[in-house]
């Protein structure tokens, strides 16, 4: 039966229908597993069908009907996934909610969505919902999965998941035709019906409820499956928030359309062990997960014996050199191939094994940019890790990296059925079958985002490289223009700089100015260790930052960035003409960074006005005095004379252009 799901690409169009289909076709295949009570409790597709039907009929008997909204709150559990389909089967719309969001935000979402029922994980969630019942007047009943601690609660409007299912079972037992009637109930449903509502936590303003239709999800999921050749034999680990579109598509839409098995971990503490046990074949994680895994590997290897560390380092070198090439099917010498094999036996294989990625057929990272070194590390181990670019409004897929066309700095080619274009101001726009229906009760926002002919504003600025791959450079609203008309994407330049370990922060200026120039913060740890190795004495950050050798080192980095920028026709105009190394570290205590360590560009521009002036007036040094807050809360000031250096810029045709004074 392998591949049968994708063989009938346009089959059933809603999840309840697909469920019935799967129960028939994959009846005895495992559909869901959950590590609970020490073992992986398993349910086959036909059992899942039973479970969902009973729950669905139970919900119906509690008064749930077409158009009602049902909040789903909790960690990844099969029962919560089933609840979503059970709701869909009676025409209700599930609204998964971030279970760890603060009460206020959750109350807003539930109130805005006008949920009638809520299916939640345990007492904690029940308490949370009860506490906000004033703000959510529409909520009538809560159904919980785990009874612990809820024994003494008043149960008139509170139900145990199992008891709702029992009700369903009892009703079916009483009326044999009910099961058929239930299936009939959703047989009339169509792909254009709303399947789910996901709230996106916009960076500004209130969350918006993205309404996705069955068509959006089912077609996108099928396209995704076909793209990576996923079938019913896959195993995935469902551990990302259920309210996130990624999890919804990977653990529900794709699982249903391909018929593969979804595994829910025991708890967040055991996730590493659970991943090791299951060894997912299709794995999805935001960059921070990969970062954490890599950090853990490195920290553990630090503690390893000398021999092991040497071996590890040696083989990792081999992998860095040839690993990716071998993965991409390029030509590699016999000796390297042999060494890589040996490394596979001694290091890569065991490493992948410990991470639980041995069986990984394809893995994705998305959400934000992944550091090229981290990305490379995993790929060099022989793991088929890829990037994608997606959005809730697109039912995830906008661009994907096809096998064999993996580049660290781009996010891939348009996904199947997706059209892509770049606006005048650099904003990426797309049109696809996955494009959302609209924001719930927010037509204004819908109109702003979605054009009448179906194009959607991503809000990101990007460029399409020569090879047809999309490269995201910045948030669209941050992208500016130099006076000369060249596109200026500050974050793009800053990120390029920050990829050098010696550079901790960078702030680029250039919008409505003549040229691009940057402030740089050196990384005290990295540069400090360089100083130690080279016997450079320094007493403070300030002293190290002013060191001419450090300046030269940073200059070489900036030069490299300029060379890179020159390669890209759209960005070449905004090469860095001048830079300086700030005399103090940017600090959240001084308001220069946000608490999440993001640069507050406008604040810095104001605070260091004299330095910016100096950048643009051609002076080579500038004396400044800056107010600072010390760690113990005292205020003080530091004074310094900051050096400013001029840089060489390059032509797109690689020729050297004289530095403009």
């Amino acid at each position, binding site marked *: 039966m392998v591949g049968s799901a994708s063989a009938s690409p346009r089959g059933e169009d809603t999840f309840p229908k697909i469920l019935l289909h799967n129960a028939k076709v994959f009846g005895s295949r495992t559909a869901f597993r959950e590590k609970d*009570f*020490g073992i992986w409790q398993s349910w086959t597709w036909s059992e899942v069908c039973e479970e969902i039907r009973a729950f669905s009929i139970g919900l119906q008997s509690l008064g749930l009907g077409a158009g009602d909204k049902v909040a789903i709150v909790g960690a990844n559990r099969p029962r919560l996934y089933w609840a979503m389909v059970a709701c869909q089967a009676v025409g209700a719309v599930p609204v998964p909610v971030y279970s760890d969001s603060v009460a206020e935000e959750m109350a807003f979402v539930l109130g805005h969505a006008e949920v009638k029922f809520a299916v939640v994980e345990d007492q904690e969630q029940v308490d949370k919902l009860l506490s906000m019942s004033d703000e959510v007047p529409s909520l009538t009943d809560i159904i919980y999965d785990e009874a612990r601690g809820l024994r003494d609660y008043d149960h*008139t409007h509170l139900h145990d998941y199992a008891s709702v299912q029992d009700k369903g079972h009892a009703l079916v037992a009483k009326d044999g035709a009910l099961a058929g009637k239930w299936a009939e109930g959703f047989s009339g449903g169509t792909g254009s019906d709303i399947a789910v509502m996901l709230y996106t936590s916009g960076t500004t303003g209130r969350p918006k409820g993205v309404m996705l239709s069955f068509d959006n999800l089912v077609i996108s999921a099928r396209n995704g499956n076909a793209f990576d050749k996923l079938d019913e034999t896959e195993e995935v680990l469902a551990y990302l928030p259920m309210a996130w579109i990624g999890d919804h598509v990977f653990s529900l839409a794709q699982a249903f359309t391909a018929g593969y098995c979804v595994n829910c971990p025991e708890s967040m503490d055991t996730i590493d062990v659970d991943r090791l046990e299951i060894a997912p074949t299709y794995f999805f994680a935001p960059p921070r997960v990969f970062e954490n895994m890599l950090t853990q590997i490195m920290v553990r290897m630090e503690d390893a014996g000398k021999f092991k560390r040497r071996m590890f380092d040696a083989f990792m070198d081999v992998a860095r050199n040839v690993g990716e090439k071998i993965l991409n099917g390029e030509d590699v010498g016999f000796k390297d191939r042999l060494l890589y094999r040996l490394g596979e036996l001694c290091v890569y294989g065991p490493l992948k094994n410990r991470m639980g990625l041995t069986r990984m057929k394809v893995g994705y990272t998305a959400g934000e940019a992944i550091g090229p070194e981290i990305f490379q590390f995993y790929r060099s181990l022989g793991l088929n890790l890829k990037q994608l670019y997606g959005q809730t409004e697109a039912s995830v897929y906008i661009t994907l990296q096809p096998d064999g066309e993996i580049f660290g700095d781009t996010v891939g080619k348009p996904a199947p059925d997706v059209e892509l274009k770049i606006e005048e101001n650099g904003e990426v726009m797309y049109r696809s079958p996955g494009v959302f229906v609209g924001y719930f009760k927010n037509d204004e926002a819908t109109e702003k985002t979605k054009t009448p002919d179906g194009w959607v504003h991503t809000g990101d600025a990007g460029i399409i490289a020569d090879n047809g791959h999309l490269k995201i450079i910045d948030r669209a609203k941050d992208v500016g223009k130099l006076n000369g008309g060249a596109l200026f994407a500050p974050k793009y330049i800053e990120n390029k700089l920050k990829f050098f370990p010696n550079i901790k922060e960078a702030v680029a200026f250039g919008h409505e100015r003549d040229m691009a120039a940057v402030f740089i913060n050196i990384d005290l740890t990295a540069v400090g260790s360089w100083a130690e190795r080279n016997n450079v004495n320094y007493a403070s950050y300030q002293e190290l930052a002013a060191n001419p050798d450090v300046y030269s080192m940073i200059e070489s980095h900036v030069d490299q960035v300029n060379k890179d920028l020159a390669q890209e026709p759209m960005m070449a105009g905004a090469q860095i003409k001048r830079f300086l190394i700030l005399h103090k570290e940017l600090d959240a205590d001084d308001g220069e960074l946000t608490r999440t360590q993001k640069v507050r560009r406008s604040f810095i521009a104001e605070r260091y006005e004299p330095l910016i002036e100096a950048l643009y007036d051609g002076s080579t040094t500038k004396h400044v005095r800056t107010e600072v807050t010390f760690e113990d809360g005292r205020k003080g000031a530091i004074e310094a004379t900051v050096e400013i250096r001029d840089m060489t810029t390059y032509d797109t045709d690689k020729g050297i252009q004289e530095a403009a004074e």
Partner: protein
Amino acid sequence: MNAFVTDKTLAPAGELEPAEREELLRVDNVSLSFGGVKAITDISFDILKGEIRAIIGPNGAGKTSMLNVINGFYHPQEGTITWRGKVRRKMKPYEAASQGIARTFQNVALFKGMTTLDNIMSGRSLKMHRNFFWQVLWRGPAENEEIEHRRKVEDIIDFLEIQAIRKTPVGRLPYGLQKRVELGRALAMEPELLLLDEPMAGMNLEEKEDMSRFIVDVNQEFGTTIALIEHDMGVVMDLSDRVVVLDYGKKIADGPPEEVQASQAVIDAYLGVSH
């Protein structure tokens, strides 16, 4: 109009006033001495079904000895113990266990060579009956029995949220978790009366809060009667229904926490007023 708002109050289901509760255990005029050293002198008190009873007192007040008398580890020279209406004087510890008295220890007394899972499984020993013959064969009855009890043990592991350490040898666990495993082991016995000897000793604030929650949950979810020794007065006042105070082997106060806290004798004892 919103059904919830009006109905959401916690119903104190099954909660009875102390006076209406059945007596589970009574200690009458018990005295215990070791070679002339009196550990306990003429102590009487009772434990009611379903309550949390605290035994407090300064160091060396005879609290642990009292627990040891209750579960048959020490045999008092004088006095009687009435357990569920039956008077007993001497009882072997394992008999006490089989009648539903479980306990934890002041200095964690886990089976160091075993994993968390096995430690809690050991609490099921009394409930498992397959004989040597079946054990040797394993396949069949013995294995089924093992699985049946494993399920119960997994419930406890789930209850105490110790899934992540299920297969870790207990010797390697931090102290706070060891205490939790020990509680799990006692719970596995499905006791009627649970004796806890300083369940929160040596824990940090967070661990104490967790442990308090577990104790209350055990009491409410399973209806287990609990007698506990504890030094942290805040915890005692929060958790317990009634408190008995010992000092130098004698009872100096007995009653609800507020009342005991206000008692002059107790204040003296804790401030170390000489006798």
